[in-house]
């Protein structure tokens, strides 16, 4: 860009949409008015305003330094967020502008200068008209104008990428600003795309691949667009052929192309620069010798016009040669281009003399998929939403393309080893195999997790802190922890005499939510367990990246159930055997199952709590009552009137005895694994699919097969009854079933919508399950004497809304974890949702609900 030339009427000033616009002009030159006219008020930061912020006086020159600190800070935040920013300060001094140029560079945006060169008299007149500036000395304006005139010529040299100079009041008044998109911003193109990896002169493989992708003579009948990630040339047999094909496709609008480091170097060669003819450049030069001068000129022009990277498909896709961290997406600066072309090297070299690259993709947390090449790898694999498509075609590997948005890989093998690699192809994708941990920044502090089903779920800092402690000290490896179960809300409080919870309320609530058919599932008397069962150690290694364990068996806070890994493995082995017998691996086309289950007996895990809490209450009451009752009876025998007190104490004694009976039902002695039962009630996910939305009758049918084929006696079925919430007869049957079950000492039941993931008429998620706990079981929760009428009355004033909201939020996070797992999203994304469930579990809510 050169200084825009004078136009008679209405100058048009192009401004790049993401840039730092610096207005340059003396005090009173009309910068603020100009800014107001051409930019949004929030885009403009004025030094006067910042002076006011820090000193309560917009003209307090002693506050200038602090004011500019604030100005730079705000501008930095805006630029980091990718927002065009206009600085309204005189900026007539080079030093002031240098700071702004540095700021633009730091955030990789273009600095643009708009100079308002207005005569001194006009400035002075305007200032005089303003009360706050009326006494500004004339010499200040004179100095401004002197400095401005001196500056104008050197603005481009200072680093401004566009310079617009407006001379005189009229020029300023008539100018219009037009926004230009950045060259790399192709977000409006939605493809579909076929992104092709490094070709390196393998023209024949390219033609085969294009054919396989469905292109006919460089065009796709369905209007797809090819995108080349660069490194078209060098090393291979026919770089000119590749260039010819790609250039013609780009020219006809059937393809896009970003430059690779090899084109870049060849381009410099073509411009006559001195470059080393290494790494296969010699071959290109030689092959191009046979081409016409005209073609070489076309190639030079083509390479010269390549844009370092493209942002495509509404910002969901970024294509570049060597990968790009998120903060560089859509940015324009030397270092962005350099990263896009060469990646980020650590400065070291490996044993083959090749540069060691910084594994930027490992740190990548962006939402846009980054598709790139540059580093030859044996297989293209996704890592943190990035994928390298250089599968070493020229080294005898294959040429790979990625279909977008399908995310399908298409490849053709190399016809031969065209060039010997300097080092063997190896995967640099870190994966989990060497135990590389996730990053704290993905879980720590206050966070918001985006969920498909419930929008944004926020996690408070103190809850994340507690979850971090438990996750770090007690939980299993995050790779083996793809899910944690959500909490569940109880049924609305019952007003039926003698009951705090009763299924009638649960049926009514679902009827009200528009759920017609529900399943009542027996609530097992154990501990919640999540079991990840892989078909074998190889499947566990392949899908979950762990060497050794074939799965995991965790509590609801992610702790392993058994300290002894071999016990866990024995249980997994039994489930695995049942799944094999039942044919589930084949029917579900999976190598692993994620099961939601209940592990029994409760005393297996909760023995500490049982002893210190429940049995203790039983022991204390058992020891205290005989003496107390005897004392009362003695007093009564003496004629002292204690009849009320005695009756009350007898009731209390019998309540306490009922309590002891209640907890005893959850305890039985186990010896090793003898006596241990696992009751699965949902298959949460299998390879590539979340089954959370599979209707419960289908779920239970699958699980019945699993239990049926268990020869070890470990697995236990979940009894169930289907109820139509609108049919009084059916509802009555449901209530009777519950009464019968809890009457025999059962814990209760969970009522679930048959359709599993269901939304109400208004579109909100309905509770995935409502628990109806048995009358006797609730003694363990609310205390031995909760059934006394006056106690029940008080306990009925319980508040369920927070618990319900918590249940829905945790459920949404759980579903999210499963969806992310199914879609093969990076581990940190799955872990983020799982960690969220654990954090929410520490929210304050009545623990008895």
């Amino acid at each position, binding site marked *: 860009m050169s200084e825009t030339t004078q136009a008679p009427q209405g100058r048009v000033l192009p401004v790049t949409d993401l840039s730092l616009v610096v207005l340059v002009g003396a005090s009173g030159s009309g910068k603020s008015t100009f800014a107001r006219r051409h930019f949004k008020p929030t885009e403009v930061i004025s030094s006067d305003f910042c002076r006011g912020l820090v000193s309560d006086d917009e003209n307090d020159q002693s506050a200038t330094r602090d004011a500019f600190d604030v100005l730079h800070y705000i501008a930095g935040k805006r630029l980091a967020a990718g927002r065009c920013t206009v600085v309204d300060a005189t900026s007539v001094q080079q030093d002031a502008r240098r700071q702004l140029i540095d700021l633009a560079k730091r955030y990789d945006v273009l600095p643009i200068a708009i100079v308002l060169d207005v005569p001194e008299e006009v400035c002075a007149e305007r200032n005089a008209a303003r009360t706050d500036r009326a006494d500004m000395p004339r010499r200040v304006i004179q100095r401004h104008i002197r400095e401005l005139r001196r500056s104008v010529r050197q603005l481009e040299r200072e680093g401004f990428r566009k310079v617009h100079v407006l001379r005189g009041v009229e020029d300023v008044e008539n100018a219009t600003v037009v926004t230009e998109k950045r060259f790399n911003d192709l977000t409006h193109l939605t493809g579909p795309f076929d992104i092709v990896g490094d070709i390196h002169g393998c023209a024949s493989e390219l033609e085969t691949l294009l054919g396989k992708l469905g292109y006919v003579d460089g065009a796709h009948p369905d209007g797809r667009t090819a995108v080349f990630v660069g490194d078209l040339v060098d090393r291979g047999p026919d770089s000119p052929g590749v260039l010819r094909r790609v250039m013609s496709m780009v020219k006809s609008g059937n393809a896009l192309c970003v430059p690779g480091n090899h084109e870049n170097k060849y381009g410099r060669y073509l411009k006559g620069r001195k470059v080393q003819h290494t790494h296969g450049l010699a071959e290109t030069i030689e092959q191009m010798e046979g081409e016409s001068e005209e073609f070489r000129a076309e190639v030079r022009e083509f390479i010269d016009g390549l844009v370092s990277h493209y942002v495509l498909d509404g910002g969901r896709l970024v294509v570049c040669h060597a990968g790009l961290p998120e903060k560089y997406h859509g940015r324009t600066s030397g270092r962005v281009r350099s990263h896009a072309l060469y990646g980020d090297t650590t400065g070291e070299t490996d044993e083959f003399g090749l540069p060691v690259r910084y594994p930027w993709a490992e740190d990548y947390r962006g939402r846009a998929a980054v598709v790139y090449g540059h580093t030859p790898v044996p297989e293209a694999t996704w890592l943190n939403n990035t994928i390298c498509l250089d599968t070493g075609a020229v080294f005898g590997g294959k040429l790979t393309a990625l279909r977008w948005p399908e995310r399908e890989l298409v490849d053709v093998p190399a016809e031969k080893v065209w060039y010997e690699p300097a080092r063997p192809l190896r995967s640099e994708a870190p994966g989990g195999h060497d135990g590389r941990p996730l990053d704290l920044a993905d879980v720590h502090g206050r966070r918001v997790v985006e969920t498909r089903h419930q929008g944004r779920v926020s996690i408070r800092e103190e809850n994340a802190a507690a979850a971090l402690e438990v*996750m770090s000290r007690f939980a299993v490896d995050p790779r083996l922890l793809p899910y944690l179960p959500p909490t569940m809300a109880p049924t609305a409080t019952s007003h039926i005499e003698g009951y705090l919870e009763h299924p009638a309320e649960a049926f009514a609530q679902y009827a009200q939510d528009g759920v017609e058919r529900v399943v009542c599932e027996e609530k097992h008397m154990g501990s919640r367990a999540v079991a990840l069962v892989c078909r074998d150690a190889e499947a566990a290694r392949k899908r979950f990246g762990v060497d050794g*364990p074939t799965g995991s068996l965790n509590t609801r806070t992610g702790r392993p159930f058994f300290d002894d890994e071999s016990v866990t493995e024995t249980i997994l082995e039994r489930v695995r055997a049942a799944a094999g017998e039942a044919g589930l691996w084949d029917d579900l086309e999976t190598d692993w199952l994620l099961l939601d289950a209940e592990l029994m007996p409760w005393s297996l895990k909760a023995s500490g*709590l049982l002893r210190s809490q429940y049995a203790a209450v039983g022991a204390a*009451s058992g020891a205290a009552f005989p003496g107390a009752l005897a*004392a009362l009876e003695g007093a009564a025998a003496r004629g002292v009137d204690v009849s009320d007190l005695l009756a*009350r104490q007898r009731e209390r004694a019998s309540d306490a005895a009922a309590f002891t009976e209640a907890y005893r039902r959850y305890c039985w002695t186990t010896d090793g694994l003898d006596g241990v039962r696992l009751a699965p009630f949902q298959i949460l996910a299998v390879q590539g699919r979340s089954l959370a939305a599979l209707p419960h009758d289908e779920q239970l049918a699958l699980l019945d097969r699993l239990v049926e084929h268990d020869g070890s006696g470990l697995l236990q079925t979940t009894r169930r009854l289907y109820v139509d919430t609108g049919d009084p007869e059916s509802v009555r049957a449901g209530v009777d079933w519950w009464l019968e079950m809890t009457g025999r000492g059962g814990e209760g039941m969970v009522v679930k919508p048959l359709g599993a993931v269901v939304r109400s008429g208004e579109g909100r998620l309905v509770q995935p399950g409502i628990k109806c706990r048995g009358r006797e079981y609730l003694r363990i929760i609310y*205390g031995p004497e909760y059934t006394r009428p006056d106690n029940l009355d008080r306990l009925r004033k319980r508040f369920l809304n927070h618990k319900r909201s918590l249940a829905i939020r945790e459920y949404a996070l759980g579903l999210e974890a499963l969806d992310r797992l199914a879609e093969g999203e990076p581990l940190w994304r799955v872990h983020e949702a799982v960690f969220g469930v654990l954090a929410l579990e520490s929210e304050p809510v009545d623990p008895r609900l």
Partner: protein
Amino acid sequence: MFLTITTTGTPERPATDLGYLLHKHPEKSQAFSTSYGKAHVLYPEADAERCAAALLLEVDAVALVRRGKGKGRGGAPDAALAQYVNDRPYAASSLLAVALSAVFSSAMRGVCNARPERAAQPLPLRIEVPALPARGGPELVRRLFEPLGWAVTAEPVPLDVRFPEWGDSRYVRLVLESEALTLAEALRHLYVLLPVLDDAKHYWVSSDEVDKLLRAGEGWLPDHPEQKLITSRYLSRRWSLTREAMERLELVRLAEADDSEVEDIDNAVEAESEVEEKPTPLAVQRRDAIIAALKASGAARVLDLGCGQGQLVQALLKDPAFTEIVGVDVSMRALTIAGRRLKLDRMGERQASRVKLFQGSLAYTDNRLKGYDAAVLSEVIEHLDLPRLPALEYAVFGSARPRTVLVTTPNVEYNVRWESLPAGHVRHGDHRFEWTRDEFRAWATAVAERHGYGVQFVPVGPDDPEVGPPTQMAIFEMNTADMNTGTQNNLNDEKKEAKAA
């Protein structure tokens, strides 16, 4: 919630005088309101030969939970589940002690206008407490009551006769007998010692406990051989009250979600350790060895990873050679205690600028830990499950990459030299493993190899010729060739290109 006081008498000195001494008529059943429910006094026996007074406290369990305590969100009481189902209504806890002092306040002071001479005299007494919570068991009960002149019968109550393998509960059936004490003395003993024996988890103790203790302990507490234990337990209840109330309940909730006891999870800091104790000689030796190694490495900016209660941070602060000291721990409780120990809130600005404490986890990489001269992992690795150790290894040696790393861990071979440690036991309940010297060396050498460090081993504590030192320390120094691993962006293109594949 129940106890009886029985005395015997003669026609001249009838047992029914007990009614005068207690200020409660033997022919009536009287009820008194106390803050925790209704207290009843009645007499199952009352004649000249034998008179028994029973104190029965009807604890209102539901109201107990509802009182005090701020409301949580959604109107739910913000409390731990443990509060809802507990032994308060049945056991002779501190609630009973409070009721005792309320109902028998005059008797406790020895005031009796009707029978002043009897109030001042010893009388035959038998006190029965059928369900006394006794942390420390029958043994401690005897140690507390016997020096006061009581003949003590304390039988443990089994937890559940159905499950004999669970063993005894923390309750004992207590019978105290004496002919040498006045009723007032007996009541004051109970008033102080019931809460002392009770478990420490309370939420309802008033704040003027010191005065009450001094008053009730007058005449017997100063000479009691267990005076220290009595005082500290009696008053520590108050401390734990504030702790429970003020500190965060998040971990409690996570423990409950998992049907575990909070002590199993929030155990990064040992229960008794807040009391400033003299550190063990080994801890001092370890700290000295670490500081010596740090000085030798020339480190100025130091990470204490797993800083616990901040003892090492505190020691490092005393040496100006350490310009920045960062204590990191995953336990919020540990950090809170470390902050208190360091008096961070009262520290001068210059001093405070040298020290930082924050929550972090070595199960995750953490950018805040990059760029330090040295990191100390003192008695940390053994608190991790072995399968999680590779994560720690990568977080420290692969990601944070300080020049020097010090790792100390117990040498399990030495355990046979600890007299107090039963064979085959680890030294701390939360130790997930303890290594022999060979095991530690193998691990450390492999880690050094993988991450470009050199490693040497230093014994800490007496180096036993047979089993080695109690603590083993590995000093990792980054190989000089690997020092230059910072990202270099400014290589010129030509150079990069030359190297690019």
